[in-house]
């Protein structure tokens, strides 16, 4: 059997290392600048908007709620629910705390912020 030289092995090793580094970089950079907001009604995704591409503000009108979409941020501008908690929450720009209108079953959330899987808070 022909032996592979040490040099060849070293080249294979280096090539693999570089290839994997490139792969990690590519995989990591895809959609990095995207700020995807999702709007759910009764648990169903009804609308998706990339906030990073919004240049002019506009509203999305749902039967009981109005959502204000602005460059880089999103908020519930009005709702016909009694508690108005969702309106009082103001704008969100990141993924940790979604805006939730419980009475009308509307949720606005931004795709998960890196590193946090869930939130425990006094909602319950």
């Amino acid at each position, binding site marked *: 059997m022909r032996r592979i030289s*040490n040099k060849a*092995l*070293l080249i*294979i*090793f280096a090539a*693999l*290392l570089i*290839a*994997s580094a490139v*792969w990690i970089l590519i995989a990591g950079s895809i959609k990095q600048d995207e700020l995807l907001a999702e709007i*759910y009604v*009764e*648990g169903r995704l009804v609308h998706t908007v990339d906030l990073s591409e919004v240049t002019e503000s506009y509203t999305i009108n749902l039967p009981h709620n109005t959502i204000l979409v602005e460059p880089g941020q999103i908020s519930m501008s009005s709702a016909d629910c*009694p*508690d108005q*908690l969702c309106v009082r*929450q*103001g704008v*969100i720009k990141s993924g*940790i*705390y*979604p805006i*939730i209108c*419980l009475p009308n*079953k509307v*949720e606005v959330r931004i795709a998960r912020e890196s*590193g*946090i*899987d*869930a*939130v*425990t*808070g*006094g*909602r*319950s």
Partner: protein
Amino acid sequence: MKRRLLLVHIVALLAVILSSCSAKPERAESTVFAMDTLMYLEVYGDEAQATVAQAVERLYFLDGLLSAVNEDSEVSKINKSAGGFVDVPDEILEQLNAAQEVSRRSGGAFDISVLPLVTLWGFGTENAHVPSDEEIEAARRYVDYRNIELSGSSVKLAEGMSITLGAIAKGYASQTLAELFEGRGISSALVSLGGNVQVVGSKPDGSKWRIALQDPVNAGETAGVLELSDMAAVTSGGYERYFEQEGKIYHHILDPKTGRPSESGLLSVTIVCENGMTADALSTALFLLGEDGAIEYWRNYGGFEALLITDDGRMLVTEGLRGSFTQSGDAYTLEYVYGNGGA
């Protein structure tokens, strides 16, 4: 020698590359509204999709069973039958037993028979208002967990009483789902039922789940992060559900002793323990007990860890959370709490 080392490295590198490309487990998630809150499920593994579907079905089933609002629920049946015994399904019996234990241990700070007070205050309805002292006293007469009688699989409330499982049902639901996942061989899952978080196993990449703890003062901020596996984390706080009357804020956690929103000096209580149902009941109990009572409860009974945020800016963390809790920012002064045998 050098050559062998190099070969080992190549093989190891290849193994890492191959595993990161191929072995991605099936992932499924779902968002549902049930039990008066928003629920989020995330499951990894074989048959993740089917498992999530089964879990969602289970949640709707429990919602119908446990609701205090739905006239046909099993809980409503218990309330309508006050004065006499009524047979209850296992799902409710388990919660009643757990609730009664926490009630006894907390000296009645935790009490599922607060429904007359909850109804009177009208939290979450358009009718939310501050009742008169007379109204509160009248409702309080029917609040006493000691008048809930459990016998075998039946329960009897004293005349005029009514119960709500609101402070335990979501924890029961998350515990039920965690057991369902484990039964189906799922080794990685997360359930978030309106602030009740329960995780099964670790994340698919083997790292622990990272659970943010919401800042009770600035609800858009994070007070810290818990890194957990096979654990439930439940928080009770007055800052999410409340109403305002004449400039004063009235939050929804009612103290059965006073018939009014708790003024225990705590802004939020987070409980970390393996059982989601226990965590849920304890978060409310310790919130109502206040700082001293909460720490005493933890020292006496244990079996869980706690994180208390006080209204004078302190964050009290029981020693078992050292290593899994990291504070974010410096809004609170962090203090560790030790058990009887501790420093």
